[in-house]
Structures are given as structure tokens and as C-alpha cells.
């Protein structure tokens, strides 16, 4: 047994806000405090290890609800950018494998850097079903963290076909089958209908227009998918990348979507990219719509969002939204990768450099910041950079500092474009996040939204994923969150004094296994065999691809 003594605990799930207590760990889980006689016995048998934390800050391990860390798109981004890695090298050390870093780090370095930052669970945000084996292969080389992936399901042939046939039962069975055979954790919906339109050489705007071969509007697709996810009782609702992402004036689409799905559970990801107004009089056309978006989120009860906070500097944008990447390529002139995946999805990659003096980038940065500050309930808004789209995940400590320290924020703004204040409200916002609120947006909230009952808190029975930070009174906030004193993963120490211990381990893969009617396979077999290019029998991810796996139950009704 392990005892962490004299911890100052920030565990919002269990209403602990700076409470000084000990934490007990056994078999990789948080345990209840043993009775004094048991402690005595343990001590006598030399079975109790004690670490005195001396009043350091303790939180559950960080949980990232949306990050691109493994799979074909991420890997293609790695190949695309040797210049991204060349100056950021990580040498082999003990059992720790080597690799490269920067915006698209190699798999090992991705695991190291999350761990070094005290994050222990990360959700890969978008995987094409057909290439799911690749994701799981990479997961096998992604150390320490627990991870899962969200399977792309907003433009799949069978999804569109069953919705256009009004066959909700088949849709539900297909989605459940898809999650099972791809080893996914949940459903990712990217620009529903719009990716199919891109493949057909068409453009769609808003959520009402019909346009593709399937004659469906995004609205119809969204409703059917949200309903299916609720009916399947998936731990995490549909994880939505809205239509019209990234374009000026798109906040209306986002709000229409939120209203449309008000009665369903919904997570909207990197909402920063969906919250732009349009100002025809302005040269840059871009405007803020954070008031409107925040108001709608504040009004709704089930909706959660993550931000996708922009970080100045190098980034590598990558998404299943092919048309979006095409637009970014036209905008930046940078190199552009596009991959259409048959019957399922698309994808694109474009490197970007967000500049402090660029007014559009400034507005994007401020949009994220303002949403953090204007969304009242921290349980509805989570910390992400949509890594590596709006910036690398390694910027989280810096973002935390911006949220916790209004003076730092104001100083920072003074470095931006001179016209910053004409376009944004940020300078007038005085809210500062508390440590407890930081704990919510970086672990407790995302864990709850993902339906991970054993993550994001330090209650008895939770996974012993624990991060211990130095106190913020004597230290720079960003430094504190960038270099935890200790990190425990499943009860084992993996980081000590800001350094990774060299006991390389691979974490768990988190999956769900919703039930479905086996007949669905026969229902899709004929079209599958004709229009896919591989056999349906070779489609499922077989057990070879799983090392340590945890099945998260599909129960949402208490």
C-alpha cells in the first residue's frame, strides 16, 4: 500500500477544495484509509510506502477529452513535417525509447510529454473506421497514458443510407457494430454531410441545406445520430465538430445545432472554431460571437464543450473535415494533405503558424479565452487546444496561467495587434479561475463528460492516476502545471521531480461495447462487399491489436 501524506487535495467531484488529507493507494486504485491496526500491520510487514507531500497540490491525473495523438492522420502529419521535428530530439534513456517532438511528436514522445505534464488519460479525437487497426497499433507504442478513440461516423455511407431510409434501428445497430469492430470508445461526428459533399465536389452551408447524393440535410443526420447515441447509452455523447467550422459568421450554425439537439446529450468540440461572427464592414470580416455562444451554453443543461484554445506559434492543423483543410491551404499557401476514406470519411492536414500580430489569429485566440471566461459553469467547458490544430497540448500550463491570472492576461494582450481591443472584450474580463475550477476543466469535467467514472477524481475506487504539483504561491503558475513534482499512473510513480522514471509502460485502451442485433452484418454485407475495397471479414480489429483493455459500460441512466 502507498500513502501520500499531507496532500492538499483539489477534487471537485468529491467537493474537496484544498482539503488537507492523506491519499491511500492499493492495486492501482484509490483506497479508503485503513484502520489504525491495519496500518500498524502494514508497517510491520514493510508493506506501506509513505511519501510526505508537505502540502503540495494534489489533483487527479489530467484528462484530455480531445486531442489528435495516434492514427493515420496524425502519422501523415508526422511524415509531412520533418522540419517540425528536426530541432526537437529526445534521445533514448534507459528503457525510454527515443523520438522527436514539436507539434506532431512521435508516439513515444507524445506519451512522455502528456505524462510529464500530469495528464494520464487522453481521447484520440477522430479515427477513420477502416484504418482503426493502425490507431490500435500506435496505441501499443503510446506509453503511460490511458487512451481511446472516437470513431468517425458523420458521413459514413451506411449512416447516410439508413438515415435517408428512415431506418433508425439499423442506424443504431450499425453504429454499435462500428464501435465494437473498430475498438472505439465513442462516436465522432465531423461536419455531418459536408465531408460527403466535399467528395462530390459540392459545398454546403448551415445545417438545413440538402445537397449530396443522399439528399439529406446536416440537421437530419445530427438528429438521428444524437438519438442513436442516447439510445445506445454510450458513456460519451456524440462528439461534434460542427458544420461551417472555421468560417466567419459560423456561430449561427453552431447555435442552430445546439438548439436542434437541446433534448439530447451533446459534446461540441473545439467550440472556439465555431464561434465566429462576421463583420462585412471590417477588412478582415472576422468578428467575435462569444456572447451569443456562451449565452446558449449557459442556458442549456446537458451540453458540454471543449475550447480548442489557439496558441501562438507553430501548429499542424488536421481534421476529417477535408474542405476545411482545403480552405486553410488556400488561406496560408502552406503544404496540404487530403485523404478521402472510402464509404466513411475524409481528412486533411495543413501546417500553420499563428502570429501574435495577425488580427484574425488574435480574434481566434481571444474567442477561446473569452469563452472560458464567459461560460459560467466550469463543468460545461474543458481545456483543449485541439492538439495539434490550434496549438500543441504542451501549452496547457500556459493557458492555465492565462485563466488564473488576469494581470498576466492583460500583459499578454499588450503584445498583440494594436487593434485587439477594437475587436474583442477580453481586456475587460476580470474573471480568474480558481485551482478548483482548473481541476474541473482539466480532469473532473472531461472525465464526467466522457462517462469515465473512475477518472478525474480521487474518491475511493477511482483509478490511482494522480498528479502532484508544487504550490502556486511561491512559483510561476505555468511552471507548476508544466512540471509536476510527482505523477502516479494506476498507482505507480512515473514522474519524480519533473523527470520521467525510465520504467516504460503502456497504459490501457478504453473501449465501449454497445449491444447490437447481429443481423446488421447481413444487412450491410452486400453493399460492403461491393463498394468497400476490403472484405467485411477483414474489417474488424481483432484481439491481436489490444494489449491492456478496459471496457467502459454503456449505462447512462442511473
Amino acid at each position: 500500500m502507498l500513502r501520500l501524506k499531507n496532500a492538499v487535495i483539489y477534487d471537485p467531484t468529491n467537493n474537496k477544495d484544498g482539503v488537507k488529507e492523506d491519499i491511500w493507494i492499493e492495486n492501482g486504485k484509490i483506497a479508503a484509509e485503513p484502520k489504525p491496526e491495519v496500518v500498524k500491520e502494514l508497517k510491520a510487514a514493510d508493506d506501506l510506502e509513505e511519501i510526505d507531500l508537505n502540502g503540495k497540490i494534489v489533483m487527479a491525473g489530467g484528462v484530455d477529452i480531445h486531442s489528435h495523438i495516434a492514427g493515420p492522420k496524425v502519422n501523415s502529419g508526422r511524415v509531412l513535417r520533418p522540419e517540425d521535428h528536426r530541432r526537437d530530439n529526445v534521445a533514448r534513456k534507459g528503457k525510454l525509447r527515443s523520438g522527436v517532438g514539436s507539434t506532431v511528436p512521435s508516439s513515444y514522445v507524445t506519451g512522455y510529454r502528456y505524462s510529464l505534464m500530469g495528464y494520464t488519460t487522453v481521447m484520440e479525437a477522430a479515427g477513420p473506421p477502416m484504418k482503426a487497426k493502425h490507431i490500435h497499433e500506435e496505441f501499443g507504442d503510446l506509453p503511460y497514458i490511458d487512451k481511446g478513440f472516437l470513431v468517425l461516423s458523420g458521413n459514413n455511407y451506411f449512416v447516410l443510407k439508413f438515415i435517408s431510409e428512415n431506418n433508425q434501428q439499423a442506424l443504431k445497430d450499425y453504429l454499435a457494430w462500428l464501435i465494437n469492430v473498430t475498438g472505439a470508445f465513442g462516436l465522432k461526428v465531423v461536419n455531418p454531410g459536408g465531408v460527403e459533399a466535399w467528395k462530390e465536389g459540392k459545398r454546403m452551408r448551415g445545417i438545413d441545406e440538402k445537397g449530396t447524393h443522399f439528399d439529406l440535410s446536416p440537421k437530419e443526420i445530427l438528429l438521428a445520430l444524437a438519438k442513436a447515441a442516447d439510445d445506445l447509452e454510450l458513456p460519451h455523447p456524440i462528439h461534434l465538430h460542427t458544420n461551417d467550422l472555421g468560417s466567419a459568421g459560423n456561430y449561427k450554425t453552431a447555435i442552430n445545432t445546439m438548439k436542434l439537439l437541446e433534448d439530447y446529450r451533446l459534446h461540441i468540440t473545439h467550440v472556439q472554431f465555431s464561434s465566429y461572427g462576421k463583420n462585412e464592414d471590417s477588412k478582415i470580416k472576422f468578428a467575435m460571437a462569444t456572447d451569443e455562444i456562451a449565452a446558449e451554453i449557459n442556458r442549456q443543461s446537458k451540453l458540454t464543450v471543449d475550447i480548442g484554445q489557439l496558441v501562438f506559434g507553430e501548429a499542424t492543423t488536421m481534421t476529417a473535415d477535408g474542405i476545411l483543410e482545403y480552405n486553410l491551404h488556400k488561406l496560408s499557401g502552406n503544404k496540404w494533405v487530403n485523404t478521402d476514406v472510402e464509404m466513411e470519411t475524409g481528412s486533411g492536414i495543413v501546417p500553420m503558424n499563428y502570429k501574435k500580430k495577425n488580427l484574425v489569429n488574435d480574434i481566434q485566440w481571444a474567442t477561446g479565452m473569452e469563452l472560458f471566461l464567459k461560460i459560467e459553469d466550469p463543468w460545461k467547458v474543458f481545456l483543449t487546444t485541439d492538439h495539434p490544430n490550434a496549438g500543441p497540448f504542451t501549452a496547457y500550463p500556459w493557458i492555465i496561467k492565462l485563466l488564473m491570472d488576469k494581470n498576466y492576461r492583460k500583459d499578454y494582450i499588450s503584445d498583440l495587434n494594436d487593434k485587439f481591443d477594437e475587436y474583442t472584450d477580453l481586456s475587460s474580463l476580470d474573471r480568474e479561475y480558481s485551482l478548483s475550477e482548473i481541476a474541473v476543466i482539466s480532469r473532473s469535467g472531461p472525465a464526467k463528460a466522457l462517462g469515465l467514472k473512475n477518472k478525474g477524481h480521487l474518491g475511493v475506487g477511482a483509478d490511482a492516476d494522480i498528479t502532484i504539483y508544487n504550490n502556486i504561491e511561491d512559483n510561476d503558475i505555468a511552471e507548476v502545471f508544466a512540471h509536476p513534482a510527482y505523477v502516479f499512473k494506476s498507482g505507480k510513480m512515473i514522474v519524480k521531480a519533473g523527470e520521467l522514471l525510465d520504467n516504460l509502460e503502456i497504459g490501457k485502451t478504453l473501449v465501449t461495447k454497445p449491444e447490437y442485433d447481429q443481423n446488421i452484418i447481413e444487412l450491410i454485407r452486400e453493399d460492403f462487399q461491393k463498394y468497400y475495397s476490403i472484405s467485411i471479414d477483414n474489417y474488424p480489429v481483432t484481439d491481436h491489436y489490444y494489449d491492456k483493455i478496459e471496457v467502459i459500460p454503456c449505462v447512462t441512466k442511473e
Partner: protein
Amino acid sequence: MTKLKLKLKKENPALIKKGKELIGKIPVEVENIRADLIKKMTLAEIKELEIRAGKEIYQLQDFFEIKGEPAEVIEIDGDLSNFKYLGAAMNSGTIIVNGDIGMHVGSEMSGGKIEIKGDAGDWLGAEMTGGIITVNGDAGNYVGAAFRGDKLGMNRGLIYIGGNAGNFVANKMRRGEIVIKGDCGDMLGAQMIAGSVYVFGKCGKRAGAGMKRGTIITFSDLEILPTFSYNISYFPNFLNIAFKHLQHDYQIEISDQFFNSEYMRYTGDNTELGKGEILIWKKD
């Protein structure tokens, strides 16, 4: 003038042998041989300077007989054709090599001077941001180029090559000057962004492919890509100024016939920005 003198030992750890027969040489990485660093060190420190041959780490004295004293000038004797990264990232001082040298010489250097009396390998002066490199013999591929995937190649400084150069000279070059007295290979100035390249011998195929801006000046006929346009035949005064600058500032010999002479001007690459120019000297 004080100098540090290095002489390559005949027997050194980089030699690959089969019995007594020399069958190859392991690459040796000498980015630590930098004039700006060495001048601040003691002789004892210099002797123990870290040098890498393949995966093994050695000391400078394992490879070289070391004479003279720590100085801003380093002179090296020997066939260093398997030595890489000499003077890489250097910002001042002088290195003179009396012999051949391998890849990456002066890559990313920002100042100082490197003189190679023999031939040099690929990536000479790649991504350099200042300083002067001269090679009396031939140079390899990617002179003054950008590394894989990078946007900008050489960005300021001068590279002079007395002999011939390989392919991809000035690839993605951003600023500065490259002068080649002999011939150069294919893809001269490919994806060039700005700067000037002078080739006094013959150019290989596809000069200027994908160039955005910048100037390629040649003195013999050249196969022009179909994506370039013939523009004008004229007497560019700026060339006279540029030649004088090369003569005065770098002591580069330029024959009188090239001054006040007529040049054909092509612009391209028209699939890109189209603001690059190729000037071809018109023999009377």
C-alpha cells in the same frame, strides 16, 4: 597570427578494415570544431573535445595531431571526406581545410569564414544565415539549400565554389549569394525564394524549377523550362554593380567581358509566383 593546427592521423577510429585492407570509413561528426568555440578553450580541453564516429564517442586527439594554440583560426590537414558538420552553426572565426571534406560544412553558420582547399560534400552552407564559405574544388548537392521540409534555405552570406557543384544548388534559397566558377547539376535554384546565384560554367537541367523570386545568372546556354517566359534582351546595370561587389568584397575574379554586356532575361517559374529571373549572357 596564432592558429590551431590539426592534422588527421593516418590511423584513426573511423577506418573500416577487413584484415589489413581499408574497406570504408565511418562518418565522423565534428560540429564541435568551431572557431568561435575553440578560441575560448584551453589546449587540454581542445584535445578532449567530443567527436562522434558512428555511434561511438571519441576525443579530438583520437583523430588529430594537435599543434599551435587555441585561436580564432583553425587549420586542418588531411582527407576529411568522411567528416561532417565542420563549422556547423559557427558564428565567427576561420577554418581552413587543406584537403577534402564531407557533408554539412558550415550548415546553419551565421558568421565567420570556412575555406576548403579540396572538395566538399552535400549540404554545404545549408540554411546558413551569414558568413563566407569558399571551396577551391567541387561541392556536392544542396549547396545553400533548405533541409528536408523546411521553408527557407540559405539566408544571407556568400558561398564561392571554384570547381563544379551538384544538384539542387540554392534550393529554396532566401537571401545571399552563391558563385560557382564551374558547372552545376540539375535543379539549380529550385523553389528559390530570393537571392542570387552565378554559374560561370554550364547548368544542368531544370534550372529555376518552381522558383518564386531570385536571380540566376549564367554565362553559357541553358535549357529553359516551358514554365519560363522570354522577357527582354538588355544590358543590366545592376549586374555591373553586383560583379564589382563580388570583386571588391570577396576578391572573386570576374572576366571583363561580362561587364556592360547584353543578357537575355527569362522570368518564371510561371506556375508559381513567376517573379524569378534567369539571365543568360549573350556572347557577342
